[in-house]
């Protein structure tokens, strides 16, 4: 264990024991629904492997994803992930700054060419040549294309990187797009959420480091965490099935813990692990606290109608459209009525009375 790059040596230096390490792998494997044997395999692999080089690029983001993954105010088992990777570039967490930081990034890219993992948070603006977000004079668009070129895989962390997120919300003034819209030739994993749950991020990273890319769904989200919708695993489901809904916040139904469908919960159409894994180390999640799911791990959730309007309502103002159409229909109707009346008048004017003699008959 003299090679300082070997993980076990690192852990030894940090005072992280083998047992803690095995416990970490066991809980990661359990969270990802892998077998306990996989935990052992994970521990073996992680212990002998050279620290994986990771470059983290932060673009048009709020840093919420970094906050979520670091939980910097309290050490936790999840933060161990940082002992398994060599975080060669990260705006918030790195010590270096300015040119030195950019140089470090380029060096890491060169040394680990084809083997480093690129993590991206934040969306990429492309309008007006991408000038709305730049780092060291380089647009995000250029930096992403340059760094992705020699990466082994790209992980888009957070809804902004995965789907465009908040910057992409109408009217999208910066032309924000997702990572998958720019990088077309590398394997991409999306870990959406605003922010994503910490253990989801670390779990997926742990999986990538040991077993490679996990099974993904059609939106490139790991099925282990995004396979079910919130509704599928919600503990308030019996109330939905029975039709018992809270009608306003803090009313009798809300106090009894009834379903929040009428208060705008987007649980049925949102895929994430909030209902099982929960937040703040399994403390709670929005629905358990009495607020409907806002659908933060789905694309375009900012433009999906109000957070407090049910999924069954329209996005926009249906009442106004109906009123407008009614007025237009009435106007057209009046026009049509006028035409019909004048047609009728013409017909009546041209009507000639016919007697039975005209028809060639007698009175008998």
């Amino acid at each position, binding site marked *: 264990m003299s090679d300082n790059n070997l993980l076990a040596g690192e852990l030894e230096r940090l005072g992280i024991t083998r047992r803690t390490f095995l416990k970490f792998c066991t809980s990661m494997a359990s969270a990802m629904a892998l077998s306990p044997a996989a935990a052992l395999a994970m521990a073996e692999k992680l212990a002998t492997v050279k620290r994986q080089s990771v470059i983290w690029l932060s673009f048009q983001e709020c840093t919420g994803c970094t906050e979520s993954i670091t939980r910097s105010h309290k050490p936790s088992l999840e933060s161990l992930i940082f002992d398994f990777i060599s975080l060669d570039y990260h705006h918030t967490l790195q010590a270096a700054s300015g040119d030195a930081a950019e140089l470090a990034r380029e060096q890491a890219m060169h040394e680990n060419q084809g083997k480093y993992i690129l993590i991206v948070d934040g969306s990429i603006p492309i309008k007006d040549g991408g000038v709305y977000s730049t780092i060291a004079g380089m647009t995000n668009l250029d930096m992403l294309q340059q760094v992705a070129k020699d990466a082994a895989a790209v992980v888009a962390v957070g809804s902004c990187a995965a789907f465009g997120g908040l910057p992409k919300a109408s009217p999208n003034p910066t032309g924000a797009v997702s990572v998958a819209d720019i990088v077309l030739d590398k394997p991409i994993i999306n870990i959406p959420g605003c922010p994503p749950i910490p253990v989801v991020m670390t779990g997926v990273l742990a999986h990538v480091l040991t077993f490679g890319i996990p099974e993904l769904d059609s939106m490139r989200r790991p099925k282990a965490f995004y396979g079910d919708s919130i509704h599928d695993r919600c503990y308030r489901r019996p109330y939905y099935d029975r039709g018992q809904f809270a009608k306003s916040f803090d009313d009798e139904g809300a106090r009894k813990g009834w379903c929040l469908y009428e208060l705008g919960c987007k649980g049925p*159409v949102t895929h994430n692990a909030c209902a099982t894994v929960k937040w703040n180390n399994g403390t709670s999640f929005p629905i358990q606290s009495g607020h409907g799911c806002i659908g933060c791990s789905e*694309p375009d959730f900012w433009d999906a109608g109000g957070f407090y*309007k*049910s999924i069954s309502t329209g*996005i*926009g103002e249906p*009442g106004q459209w109906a009123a407008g159409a009614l007025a237009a229909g009435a106007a057209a109707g009046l026009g049509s*009525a006028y035409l019909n009346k004048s047609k*009728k008048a013409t017909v009546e004017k041209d009507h000639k009375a016919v007697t039975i003699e005209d028809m060639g008959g007698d009175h008998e």
Partner: protein
Amino acid sequence: MNEIELLNWARGPGLAYATIFMVFGLTLRIFEILSLGRPKELAEVRESGVKEGWKTIIKRSIPEPRHWKLITASYIFHVGLLIVIFFFIPHTQLFRDVFGIFWGGWPSYIIDFFTVLSIAAMLYTLVARFYDPTRRILSKMSDYFAWVVTFLPLVTGYMAFHRLGMDYTTMLAVHILSVELLMISLPISKLTHAITFSMARYYTGSNNGRKGIHS
């Protein structure tokens, strides 16, 4: 286009176009019907026909014993459909959003029951139309089309609620799109009878009344 984009389109622009088309179309049609009115009455009327007209609107709702099976099925389907549309809680949310008024919904398992009943009744009416020789000859494409656009929302709604078929987000989008298809068909097919049935009954009744027929 992924499934959530499809759902957002159905709830957004899709619903807008369908609502505008339906309301505009129905309003225009009703204005046209009322303004066209009737041809000038050339014979001498026995009485005014107004009373008979109103009476007929109600009387035509009483079933005719001869066709009791079909009429029963038709009633079950019509009543069931109205119950499902107006008393399923997610639907009441939509109406509250559009009209600003809210009436209580019913428990979901009751709505479920009426959905199945309506689907069964609709299937019966389709089979009855197809296997009765007279009705089959009289039936045109527009009749079958009206049946299909009414049947789809019931079936897709049922499937979505019970998580059958495709994933929920897609199934919900399909259900909403099928409703929008129904909305668009309303002014341009025989489905307009939803509004005009009373007008048609009044017309027939008052005609009879003018001739002195008391039904």
